[in-house]
């Protein structure tokens, strides 16, 4: 009898062929691109990448730049706030939307529409709305509450929250929709069982639905975090990193050095640091999350 195990290479051939674009993207673009970036971070490339090695100079400069340090702090505050807020808001809204409400489509579109608008202008609108001279503060004050103060964008300590307000406005709709899609996949029988168990609705969500939606949460987590790490347009449009350095972000540092300051080497050093940080967190996590058993 032929008991030869056939070559593993040809098993699930279609699947492997279908995954070629992914493999190529991963290897050539992401891995290759990262390697390229890291390599050129050791050069003093300016407008064009140039193989002109300077060792760790770019890194030394990077870590002695105040703006970079402040950017990292800002990112930490912004990231923590955005993660928590967009998940809470996105999930709570998705739950509300899942209550078989009327006009679901309208509500959903309202919450999602900001996502469709270019930040170049919405940043400006939020600037206006948060502007103490003619925005909300002005309205409230002219309504009689003279001492009302709301000018986050012009107070260094609060500016980051002003940015968050706009970011949440733009991005939470998407998180909501993603969660809603997850909720729609949940078997109604589970609800029945939980109702029999006499569990209050919020607890059903927390204890049963959220664990069941783990995959969707992971997707949302990656989506939101990668958005946080890459945050750029919004800051440029809304505060240009100000007041002072109060809303500078690492990604903005990278782009500014790349295109505005024409110092590719510095930009690459900064992005290498960002990628390194991401790698330290993401790779072990992803290996654990996706490498193990088939299903969670």
């Amino acid at each position, binding site marked *: 009898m032929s008991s030869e195990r056939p070559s593993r290479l040809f098993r699930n051939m279609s699947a492997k062929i279908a995954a070629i*674009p*992914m493999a190529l993207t*991963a290897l050539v673009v992401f891995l290759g691109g990262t390697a390229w970036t890291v390599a050129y971070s050791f050069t003093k490339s300016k407008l064009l990448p140039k193989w002109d090695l300077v060792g760790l100079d770019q890194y030394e400069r990077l870590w002695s730049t105040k703006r970079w340090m402040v950017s990292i702090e800002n990112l930490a505050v912004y990231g923590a706030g955005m993660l928590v807020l967009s998940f809470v808001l996105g999930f709570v809204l998705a739950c509300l939307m899942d209550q078989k409400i009327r006009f679901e489509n309208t509500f959903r*579109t309202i919450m999602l529409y900001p996502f469709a608008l270019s930040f170049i*202008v919405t940043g400006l609108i939020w600037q206006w709305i948060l502007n103490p001279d003619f925005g909300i503060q002005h309205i409230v004050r002219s309504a009689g509450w003279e001492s009302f103060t709301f000018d986050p964008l012009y107070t260094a300590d609060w500016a980051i929250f002003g940015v968050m307000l706009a970011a949440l406005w733009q991005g939470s709709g998407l998180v909501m929709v993603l969660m809603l899609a997850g909720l*729609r996949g949940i078997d109604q029988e589970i609800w029945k069982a939980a109702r029999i168990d006499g569990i209050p609705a919020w607890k059903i969500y927390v204890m049963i639905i959220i664990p*069941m939606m783990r995959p969707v949460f*992971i997707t949302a987590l990656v989506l939101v975090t990668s958005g946080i790490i890459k945050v750029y347009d919004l800051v440029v449009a809304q505060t240009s990193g100000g007041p002072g350095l109060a809303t500078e972000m690492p990604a903005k540092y990278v782009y500014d050095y790349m295109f505005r300051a024409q110092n590719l080497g510095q930009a690459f050093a900064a992005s290498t640091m960002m990628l390194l940080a991401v790698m330290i967190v*993401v790779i072990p996590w992803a290996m654990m999350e996706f490498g193990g058993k088939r299903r969670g």
Partner: protein
Amino acid sequence: MLQGPTGRKPRKALTRGNIMLYGTLIVVSLYYLLPLYVMIVTSLKGMPEIRVGNIFAPPLEITFDPWVKAWAEACTGLNCDGLSRGFWNSVRITVPSVVVSIAIASVNGYALANWRFKGANTFFTILIFGAFIPYQVMLYPLVILLREIGLYGSLTGLVIVHTIFGMPILTLLFRNYFSSLPEELFKAARVDGAGFWRIYFQIMLPMSLPIFVVAMILQVTGIWNDFLFGTVYTKPDSWPMTVQLNNIVNSTQGVKEYNVNMAATLLTGLVPLVIYFASGKLFVRGVAAGAVKG
């Protein structure tokens, strides 16, 4: 005999729960609508009124000129035909990019979730890592890559770029969704003699409508609003509408016409808006209801 409540529970519109529910939704909607309101109001005002006025005040004198201008008259360089110029380019870019990127990512996600093979997870991990790489960092390497394969400057090249950048999140989105569907269905289909593609099209796809909508929302928005890739990887002839939007809105030294900016932004957002609204029906409930017991 039959006293007390009987039959279907009457649906009272004004229960406390409903007031809370709709109340919350309406309050939240206000947060989402406030900036939109400001934009609309501004787009209907003349410039002098904007310079003096209160941003929340309704226009004293409604004018649609900014809309007309944004659509048909605003200049970008020599061409003064507003947003309308790039509209079809945008469509030409968005349609294939959305279709191709979603198609490839969903097939990838499906292959990863259901047809596990060696090495897949390593690639996938790199891919997820790729989600965190700032686009701009990859700008030049991709230029070089496309140049080497001879696709630089073509629409195909741009579609490839959009596909590449959409791939990490979309693949994750689909992989995670597919792996939360009951595995037995996949098994049953294999026994039924369905191959890789048939299972994908006939079993997985119909059960994944909500997630396809999410993917579509992500991609349509992202690609429709993109102008960086659209300009970096193609020629001016095929630049998307957002270049016009950017030009109208973003001129640094020239005069800023806020009303036209607002109108242009709102106009550009209309296409995604239509998609959002139209996709509502696909948000079906209980996609796998009745499939398995357990």
